[in-house]
C-alpha cells in the first residue's frame, strides 16, 4: 500500500505504470503511517509545570489552554493559612481526547511559591521534585521490566513573570537559574491585559535582555530547515521574538462582536483571550500543543535527562573512588601493598600484571566476589571471603553497592522480578541478588569481572585470556564502567575519564586496591 496506488491514471497506462511502480518501490514510505497509527493507539503523555507567585493567573491560563476545568473546586487559601504555607507540589492529571488522539496531561502546580515573607530557596522543593522524577525514570530504565515505564518527567515549565515589576525580580532570576539545566523553561508575561501595547513591547525587550544578561537558558525553539517555505520561516521568526509570551487567561465566556468567546469583560471593553491582536495566547498554545510538544519532550529526554544521568553516574563513581581511597589508608599491612596507577598505554605490562595476579590467585583458591546480601556475608564462605571490615576495599565496594539507590535490594522486591535468569540488558549474567548461594557457577578460579553498567550490577565470569571478548566489549562500551577482580587486584575502569585506547579500543587504568584475605 503505497501512495502511488490511489492516483488515477489513464487506462492501460495505469496497469503498466502500477506494475512498473511496484517494482520500483520498496514500500517503506508507509513507515510514518505505521508510527502514526501506533502512537494514536498508545496515546501521548505530557507533563507541564506551572510556576510563579500566586495571583498571576496560572490556573486560569491552564484551564484556557486545554479547555478544561481542572481547578473548578479550588478554594483559595486565606491569608492566615498562607503565612504557614511552604511550597507545595500538586499534580492534576487529566485525559484529553481529540479526534481519536489521546493525551494524558499532567499539570504540576507549585502553590505557595514566592508567597512568604522570606522566600530564600523556595525553588528547592521544585528542583527536588524534578530530580526525583528523573531519578525514578533512571531507576525504571535500569530495571528489569522496561516495557511500561511511566514517564513522569517534567517536559516543560511555564514560568510566570509579574507584569507589575520592572522586568525580572531577584526571585525570578534565582528560580530560573536553578532550573534552566533541569527543565525547559518557557517564560510567560502574566496578566498582560494590564499593559498597553508599547508597555508590553518594552517589558518583553527588558526581560529578554535580562535573561541574556544573567545567562539563563530558556527553551530555544529549534531552527527551521532551510527548505521550509517562507511563511513558515516568518512564523518561526515571529515566535522566537515573542518570548516572553504575554498572555491572558479566562474562565468565563463573554459575548463579543456577536460571537461567544473566552474573555474578560471590563467596563471599557472586552479582552478576548484568543485574539492574536490582544495577547500571545494563541501563539503559546500553538507552540505548546500544535508544533513543539514533541520537541519539548525530545529536549527533556535528550538533554536534561542525559545531563542528570551523567551527573548521577559520575557522582557514584566519585563515591566509590573516595571510599576506596579512604579504605586504602586503614588497610592492614602484610600482603597488601599499594600498586601505583599504571600509566595508560602500557598494554603488555597490564596483561603481565593481570597474568601474575591470576597465577597468584589460583594458588589461593576461589574468591567469592561478594554476594551482596548484607546479612549473608557469612555462611560457609567466610573463610574464603575477604574480610568485611572497614579497612577492606571489597567490603567498601560491597557496602557501596548496597547503599546505592540503584541496587535492587535497596529498591525493594517489586523492582526486581527476576530471580534466576540473565540480566535483561546484557543477557549474560545474573543479578547479584539472585546469584544462587551455593551455585557451582560461583566457585571457580578464574577472575570474575564485576561489571557495573547503568542497568545495575552484574557479574560475568570471564577467562582472563578472553578479557576483551566481543560481548564484554559491547558491554563495556555501553556501560558506565566496570570492576575487574583479578586475583587480589581490583581494577576499575571509568568510562568518563578520557583514556587512550588499547587493544580493541578500550583501555584500563589501574586504580587498584588490594584485598586482604581472612
Amino acid at each position, binding site marked *: 500500500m503505497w501512495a502511488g496506488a490511489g492516483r488515477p491514471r489513464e487506462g492501460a497506462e495505469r496497469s503498466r505504470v502500477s506494475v512498473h511502480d511496484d517494482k520500483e518501490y520498496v514500500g517503506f514510505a508507509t513507515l510514518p503511517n505505521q508510527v502514526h497509527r501506533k502512537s494514536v493507539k498508545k496515546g501521548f503523555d505530557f507533563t507541564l509545570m506551572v510556576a510563579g*507567585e*500566586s*495571583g*498571576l493567573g496560572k490556573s486560569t491560563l491552564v484551564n484556557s489552554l486545554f479547555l478544561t476545568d481542572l481547578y473548578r473546586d479550588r478554594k*483559595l*487559601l*486565606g*491569608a*492566615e493559612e*498562607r*503565612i504557614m504555607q511552604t511550597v507545595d507540589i500538586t499534580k492534576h492529571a487529566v485525559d484529553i481526547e481529540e479526534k481519536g488522539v489521546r493525551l494524558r496531561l499532567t499539570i504540576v502546580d507549585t502553590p505557595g511559591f514566592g*508567597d*512568604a*515573607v*522570606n*522566600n*530564600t530557596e523556595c525553588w528547592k522543593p521544585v528542583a527536588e521534585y524534578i530530580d526525583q522524577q528523573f531519578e525514578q525514570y533512571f531507576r525504571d530504565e535500569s530495571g528489569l521490566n522496561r516495557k511500561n515505564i511511566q514517564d513522569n518527567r517534567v517536559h516543560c515549565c511555564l514560568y510566570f513573570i*509579574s*507584569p*507589575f*515589576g*520592572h*522586568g525580572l*525580580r*531577584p*526571585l525570578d532570576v*534565582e528560580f530560573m537559574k536553578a532550573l534552566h539545566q533541569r527543565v525547559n523553561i518557557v517564560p510567560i508575561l502574566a*496578566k498582560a*491585559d*494590564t*499593559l*498597553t*501595547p508599547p*508597555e508590553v513591547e*518594552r*517589558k518583553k*525587550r*527588558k526581560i529578554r535582555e535580562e535573561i541574556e544578561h544573567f545567562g539563563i537558558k530558556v527553551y530555544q525553539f529549534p531552527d527551521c530547515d532551510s527548505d521550509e517555505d517562507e511563511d513558515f520561516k516568518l512564523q518561526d521568526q515571529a515566535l522566537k521574538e515573542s518570548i516572553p509570551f504575554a498572555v491572558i487567561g479566562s474562565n468565563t465566556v463573554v459575548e463579543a462582536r456577536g460571537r461567544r468567546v473566552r474573555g*474578560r*469583560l*471590563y*467596563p*471599557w*471593553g*472586552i*479582552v*478576548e483571550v484568543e485574539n492574536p*491582536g*490582544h495577547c500571545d495566547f494563541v501563539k503559546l498554545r500553538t507552540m505548546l500543543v500544535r508544533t513543539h510538544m514533541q520537541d519539548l519532550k525530545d529536549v527533556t529526554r535528550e538533554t536534561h535527562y542525559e545531563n542528570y544521568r551523567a551527573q548521577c553516574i559520575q557522582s557514584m563513581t566519585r563515591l566509590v573512588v573516595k571510599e576506596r581511597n579512604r579504605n586504602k589508608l586503614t588497610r592492614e599491612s602484610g600482603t597488601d601493598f599499594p600498586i601505583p596507577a599504571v600509566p595508560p598505554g602500557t598494554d603488555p605490562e597490564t596483561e603481565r600484571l593481570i597474568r601474575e595476579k591470576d597465577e597468584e590467585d589460583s594458588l589461593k583458591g576461589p574468591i567469592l566476589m561478594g554476594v551482596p546480601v548484607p546479612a549473608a556475608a557469612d555462611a560457609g564462605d567466610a573463610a574464603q571471603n575477604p574480610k568485611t571490615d572497614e579497612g577492606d576495599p571489597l567490603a567498601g565496594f560491597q557496602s557501596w553497592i548496597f547503599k546505592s539507590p540503584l541496587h535492587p535490594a535497596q529498591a525493594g522486591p517489586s523492582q526486581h522480578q527476576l530471580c534466576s535468569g540473565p540480566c535483561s540488558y546484557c543477557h549474560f549474567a545474573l543479578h547479584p541478588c539472585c546469584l544462587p548461594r551455593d551455585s557451582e557457577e560461583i566457585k571457580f578460579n578464574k577472575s570474575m569481572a564485576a561489571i557495573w553498567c547503568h542497568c545495575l550490577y552484574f557479574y560475568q565470569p570471564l577467562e582472563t585470556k578472553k578479557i576483551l571478548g566481543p560481548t564484554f566489549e559491547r558491554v563495556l562500551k555501553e556501560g558506565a564502567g566496570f570492576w575487574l577482580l583479578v586475583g587480589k587486584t581490583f581494577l576499575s575502569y571509568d568510562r568518563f575519564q578520557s583514556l587512550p585506547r588499547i587493544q580493541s579500543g578500550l583501555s584500563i587504568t589501574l586504580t587498584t586496591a588490594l584485598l586482604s584475605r581472612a
Partner: protein
Amino acid sequence: MDPLRQSASPCSSRPSSPKTPPCEMLGYVGIEAVLDQLKIKAMKMGFEFNIMVVGQSGLGKSTMLNTLFKSKVWKCTLPGLAMPTPQTLQLKSVTHVIEEKGVKLKLTVTDTPGFGDQINNDKCWNPILGYINEQYERYLQEEILITRQRHIPDTRVHCCVYFVPPTGHCLRPLDIEFLQRLCRTVNVVPVIARADSLTLEEREAFRRRIQHNLRTHCIEVYPQKCFDEDINDRILNSKIRDRIPFAVVGADRQHLVNGRCVLGRKTKWGIIEGPTVGKPTTRKQTDLEIKSLLAAGRTQWRTWRTVSFLC
C-alpha cells in the same frame, strides 16, 4: 453669662454639636468673619502634607501620585530605564509646593524603592518604621523646647498609602505583616494598585476578601473607627470604609475620548480613563486624604506622643 440676643440672620440654620445646646443669638455679631480671617491666614501660611507611598516596584506609585495631584510630583521610572533594585530599602523624599486657587500646599512625598522586591523580605518594614518614628521624634524635640518656633516644620508622615498588588486572591503575608505594624503608628490607606487588571466582579470580591483579612488581623486602617467624633463623621467614614481598599488606576497620558481630553491608558480593547466619576478611584481619595488626614494626623500624633512619654 449674659443673655444672648436673638439672631435674625440665616446663620441660625447652622448645625451645632450635640454637646452644647444651641444658643440663640439676638442680632448679628459677626462671628463668622473669624472664619474668613482664618482662611486668609491659612492661605498665607499654606498647608503641609506629607505622604508616603509603599509598595513593590512597578505598581504605579509614582503615576498615581502624579494623577492625584495633577502634576508631575514624582518622576516616573520607565521600565527600560529603571535602576537596579537597591539591596536594602532606601527612603527618598521629594518636596514640592503646589498651588491651586491661591492655596499653597507644601507636599512632601516619600518613596520606598526596594520594598518587598528582595527574595528575603524579612524585616523590610523596619527602615520605614524607623523613618516615621524619627520624624515624630524630631517634632517632639521641637515641641518640648522652652522657646519654641512659631511654626514647627512638620515632617511627620500624615498618610501612608500601601499598594496591594491585584492578585485577586487576598492579602499576602508580607502585606499583613507590614499593615499590622504600621497601622498603629501612621494612617495607612491600603489601595489596590493597577486595578485595570481586575473585572468589576473580581474587584468587588477582592475588596471583600481584603476587608475580611483586615478585620481578622485587627488592622485599623484610616479612617479609624475610634477617631470618629460624631454621628456625621461616622456615617461619612463608614461609607468610605466600605470602599477601602480603593482600586486605583494611574494614568499620565492624555487621550481623546468623545471629544474630551482625558488622562487614560489606551489598549487595543478600549481606553481606561483615569479619574472618572463612576469608579471609586483617585478623586475620592484626594478629597479623603487631604481634607481629613491633616486632622487625623493630629490625633495620631497625640497617640504617639502619649506613648513616647510613657515609655
